[in-house]
């Protein structure tokens, strides 16, 4: 049965990709599996508390409140599944490696393609199901705990929640596949493989940023879903699935009897019920339109997939790259620093930008940092606004720390054992300098925003403070890393407890520092003393 064998082979490929090194694959997979259960569990309980705390819960209020939850669940499912599809970007299609391995066997091409599509569908469906299983069981239960309904009604409510969120997840996966295959069809194999990693990095950053913005931007009651004129194009795909939920689950809830309520509450409930009933025809229309677009996306992605796979490309053809003169001159530009330090700076820059795992760490950190920054940034000189820059820098350095604690390729690390003849310390120094350069670049990008808000003097002082605090963060990040990018340091067993506590403490410390900074920016001596103090701490940590 070559089909079964091939499907199993392709499914294994999705798990055994380069994001989990051989040395710690089981640990990585175990952490991922645990996260797939615990994070949705935590989020669901957190989001459901409002139902349990609401006295005299009634259908109208529930229907409108539920909309905000469903928008969040659908957006999260869609974006997380899209992230997974982007992480599997190279394994989504039949690769030249597949052609080299499978091409020699007497298996028809259509069998290979069919097996790959089956494996893709199985993987996407299994992941979407695993991601949404806990919320689908728990959210309807907690949401309806105080409503006058039978336990049997939970089954259709859970089924609707599962179908809608899984559908959103599958759409996220299919959309990434459609983009990849459309690009392949447009550019051809040679050009596609040349731009593929850059396109993936950009998409990954965009999706991660949207995911990080979900709690910030979508945690309200999704009023825009009830108002035809307030819809935003970017939110349209989420709207299709949330509308489908409102049309199906909302109808079930709408039929429930209302409890006896005081007059003001009853009036409010009547208003919310009318609001839902008026919007119901539009929800139905949006849901059908969404279903049509989803089906179209699925059909298009499969059609493009089959078209692109009509020839499995064994060789990537194309003229050799010459490389930019700047890249060639890079070691000479760094000629003033020790050769091993220069090697450290360049190796770190290349690993962070080109190694898939390291790039993902940086993109996740950057997306989280930008989401925090956009949530906090405001016009006036407030503690929150001042903390925004430090939080973004902290997120970038956290990504840098995760990256330098991961081997760039554990099999290729032998060269450091053979060639680093006493230069390991200087190489580490180079990696450290790369981290500080990253901090300076981040603060430099933020400087114009601060200048627009507060003028040159305050913006410059704030930027200097950001660089100095970032320098301290880099020193702290490198404290226990003696061989950055060469050997992997597995996360400690207490990462879920100590890590969370430390993270919380760090956020509190950042806000306290921002409060002090606000006070210090008021005087010239404060402007000088604040960065000097942090420089002294950074210097002491380095020592």
């Amino acid at each position: 049965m070559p089909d079964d064998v091939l499907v199993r082979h392709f499914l294994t490929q999705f798990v055994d990709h380069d994001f989990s090194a051989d040395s710690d694959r089981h640990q990585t997979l175990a952490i991922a599996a645990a996260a797939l259960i615990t994070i949705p569990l935590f989020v669901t309980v957190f989001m459901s508390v409002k139902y349990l705390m609401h006295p005299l819960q009634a259908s109208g209020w529930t229907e409108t409140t539920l909309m905000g939850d469903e928008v969040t669940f659908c957006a999260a499912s869609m974006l997380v599944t899209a992230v997974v599809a982007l992480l599997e970007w190279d394994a989504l299609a039949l690769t030249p490696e597949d052609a080299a391995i499978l091409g020699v066997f007497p298996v028809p091409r259509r069998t290979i393609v069919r097996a790959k599509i089956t494996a893709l569908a199985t993987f996407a469906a299994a992941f979407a199901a695993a991601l949404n299983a806990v919320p689908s069981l728990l959210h309807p239960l907690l949401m309806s705990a105080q409503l006058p309904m039978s336990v049997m009604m939970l089954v259709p409510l859970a089924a609707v929640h599962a179908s809608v969120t899984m559908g959103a997840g599958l759409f996220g996966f299919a959309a990434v596949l459609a983009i990849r295959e459309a690009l392949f069809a447009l550019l051809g194999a040679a050009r596609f493989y040349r731009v593929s990693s850059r396109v993936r990095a950009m998409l990954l950053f965009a999706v991660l940023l949207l995911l990080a913005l979900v709690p910030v931007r979508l945690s309200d009651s999704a009023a825009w879903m009830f108002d035809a004129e307030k819809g935003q194009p970017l939110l349209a795909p989420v709207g299709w699935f949330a509308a489908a939920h409102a049309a199906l689950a909302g109808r079930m809830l709408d039929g429930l009897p209302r409890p006896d309520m005081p007059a003001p509450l009853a009036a409010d409930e009547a208003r919310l019920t009318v609001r839902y009933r008026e919007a119901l025809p539009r929800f139905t229309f949006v849901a059908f339109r969404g279903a049509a677009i989803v089906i179209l996306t699925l059909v298009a992605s499969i059609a493009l997939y089959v078209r692109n796979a009509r020839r499995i490309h064994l060789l990537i053809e194309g003229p050799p790259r010459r490389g930019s003169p700047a890249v060639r001159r890079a070691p000479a530009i760094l000629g003033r620093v020790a050769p091993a330090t220069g090697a450290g700076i360049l190796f770190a820059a290349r690993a962070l930008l080109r190694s898939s795992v390291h790039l993902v760490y940086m993109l996740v950190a950057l997306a989280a940092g930008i989401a925090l920054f956009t949530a906090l940034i405001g016009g006036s000189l407030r503690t929150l606004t001042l903390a925004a820059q430090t939080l973004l820098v902290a997120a970038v350095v956290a990504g840098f720390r995760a990256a330098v604690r991961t081997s760039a390729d554990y099999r290729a690390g032998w060269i450091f054992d053979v060639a680093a003849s006493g230069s390991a310390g200087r190489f580490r120094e180079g990696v450290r300098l790369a981290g500080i350069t990253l901090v300076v670049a981040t603060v430099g990008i933020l400087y114009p925003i601060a200048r627009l808000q507060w003028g040159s003097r305050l913006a410059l002082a704030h930027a200097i403070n950001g660089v100095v605090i970032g320098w301290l963060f880099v020193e702290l990040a490198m404290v226990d890393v003696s061989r950055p990018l060469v050997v992997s340091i597995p996360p400690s067993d207490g990462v879920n407890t100590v890590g969370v506590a430390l993270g919380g403490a760090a956020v509190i410390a950042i806000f306290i520092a921002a409060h002090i900074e606000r006070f210090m920016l008021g005087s010239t001596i404060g402007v000088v003393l604040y960065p000097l103090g942090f420089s002294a701490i950074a210097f002491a940590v380095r020592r």
Partner: protein
Amino acid sequence: MPSLLEVRHLVKRFHGHAAVSDVSFTLAPGEIVGYLGPNGSGKSITIKMLTGLVEPTSGHVLYDGHDVTGGELAFRRRFGYVPEEPHLYPFLSGREYLDLVAGLRELPVRDAAQKIDALLDLFGLADSAAQSITAYSKGMKQKVLIIAALLHDPDLVILDEPESGLDVGSILLLRHLVRLLAQRGKAVLYSSHVIESVERLCSRVIVLSAGRVVVDGDVNRIRTVAPSGSLEEAFATLAAQRPDAVAEQIADIVTHHA
């Protein structure tokens, strides 16, 4: 001639199993020593112990009379090593990898850049120097490894299957290069499965079998082990291999149908 490298009773055990039981030999400047042995005989493990990549269970490695067991820093500056497997950082180009090696070896940037450019050109890699290593053939990766091993002008050159993946022209180039390096005083340890290369290049051969040195001597003397005078047959005899008989058994199994 005094030996540059001396290996004394190296032993390596993995979970009680001896991969290398007792290996001793010497290597003098200007000498090319062939290091032969069947698969699993302990050749690569011995070489990894020499380079400090694997810690020996017991035994010593002496370089210029000093104990350098475990790969002392001063010793690492003096040897160049081409490993059996061409593991290179896939996100770097050939030139970037060589820049990294030059940096780690702390070669002056300008000199290293000129040397790298010239060597890439002479090894026929100039056009593909900026390409990602993932696009390299096995032979191209091997050339990058050879350049990386020679970049710092080492006194001791350790080559583990250096011809792997190379085309005929490149193999001939490598052989000439190894001879010239030996003439200029470099000590070369040449581990290979290609008997022809060892026969043409090496003045002395060490044959390993089951983790032990079964012979260490002049190529011509070893030939006398086989009645035909062929080094290939002598090697098979010394390594206790019966290729003809085993081949017959394999052919029987392959052509047997129930």
